[in-house]
């Protein structure tokens, strides 16, 4: 039951990975990143993958639909005025959800790379496993005492019985409803008095995976608005956040972020 795309030389295990790859390929010229080119490349890749099983195909297609909508939006003229209709809001919401998922996926893929380095380092040391010398083992209790041949056969049945197949997941894209606006509002309350803090502290006690990503987006939003300064000593170092916005709590920012975020 191997899925066809898993055995390709250039493996994209999931839609997020594929999309991240396509984006990274464009990253050479950050300011020329083209949504159109990425959407076209994504669709071409989907085509190249050939038939997928239903579940995988759904995941890839949901993303494709969002991308195509975003591309269409990009090609249309800006709507007059600043009113957004419900469809547009829904599209922005989908885009933000996709963005959050991409960031989360990227976060864990970087964590995976780090685990690989740790495993490589760990493999350079081999533990002593020779065990006690034979003469000591004679003292060890006989583990087979009281075990009958029937016990052994029953243990085999337990070990080799087919496990019940995992239920087919109907949770394709868990509709995660998180609001960057809420996170922004929270940060606008906590950051001004805090001087310099760290991203780790900002996310202390946050254990939902998506919430960390959302807070990160909120911090970036503040950065874009010039309300905080960010710096990170080293690649894996602490991300330090310094409030530079004075005492003002721009309520308009929160309103603006609401259309942006959720």
């Amino acid at each position, binding site marked *: 039951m191997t*899925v066809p795309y898993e055995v390709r030389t250039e493996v994209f295990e999931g839609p997020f990975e594929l999309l991240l790859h396509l984006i990274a390929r464009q990253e050479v010229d950050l300011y020329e990143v083209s949504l159109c080119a990425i959407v076209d490349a994504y669709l071409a890749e989907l085509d190249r993958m050939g038939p997928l099983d239903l579940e995988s195909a759904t995941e890839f297609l949901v993303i494709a639909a969002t991308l195509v909508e975003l591309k269409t939006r990009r090609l249309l003229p800006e709507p007059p005025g600043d009113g957004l209709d419900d469809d547009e809001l829904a599209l922005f919401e989908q885009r933000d959800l996709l963005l959050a998922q991409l960031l989360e996926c990227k976060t864990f893929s970087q964590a995976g790379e780090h685990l690989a380095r740790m495993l490589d380092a760990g493999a350079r040391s081999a*533990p002593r496993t020779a065990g006690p010398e034979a003469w000591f083992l004679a003292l060890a209790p006989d583990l087979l005492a009281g075990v009958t041949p029937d016990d052994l056969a029953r243990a085999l049945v337990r070990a080799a019985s087919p496990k019940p197949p995992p239920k087919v997941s109907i949770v394709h894209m868990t509709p995660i409803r998180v609001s960057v606006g809420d996170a922004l509002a929270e940060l606008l309350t906590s950051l001004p008095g805090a001087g310099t803090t760290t991203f780790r502290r900002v996310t202390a006690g946050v254990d939902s995976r998506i919430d960390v990503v959302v807070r*990160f987006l909120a911090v970036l939003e503040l950065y874009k608005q010039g309300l905080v300064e960010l710096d990170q000593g080293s690649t894996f170092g602490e991300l330090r956040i310094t409030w530079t916005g004075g005492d003002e709590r721009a309520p308009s920012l929160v309103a603006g*972020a609401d259309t942006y975020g959720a």
Partner: protein
Amino acid sequence: MKPRSEITRALEAVLLVAEEPVEPHLLAQLLEVSPSRVDEECAALAAAYADEERGFVLARVAGGYRLQTHPDLAPYVERFVLDGQPARMSPAALETLAVVAYRQPVSRPQVASVRGVNADAVMRTLAHRGYIEEVGRDPGPGQAVLYGTTRVFLEKLGVDSLADLPPLSSFVPAPEMVEAIEKALGGGGSSNGG
């Protein structure tokens, strides 16, 4: 040279016959000293091995103490131990392992939703390798099986506990990456426009 204490010598002997990291409380019981004394003795012995440039080290791994070869000497040890150099893991397997490590206890659908792809086959492979295992059931409806990492996982990483993993936030993409992704998806949207 002053005579070595029986405690230190017994510690060396027990560690030599142990097949897995030995927990301090068991060592304390065997040596009839307090667990904190065990920790002191082990720290001193580890420092002495390092000083003496031994070919082995005393390491604290997965909640216990064990003797292991010095990483410098990996080329010799690898040549000697033919069996058991497992193939490298795929990026997909590593990413899944990271999700389980940082999100445990976690169900298969939860892992799948992070990666946007069914995780069953990869999780089976990780279980075969002994890195993850079933750790319980979700109390909610459906009672999904929950997975976590194993003691073997810590042993392979050579770390004492999960607390020795870097915080997940240290892997959140750099701002430039985030910006590139944002741009790719159509920039900051309406909030940039005004």
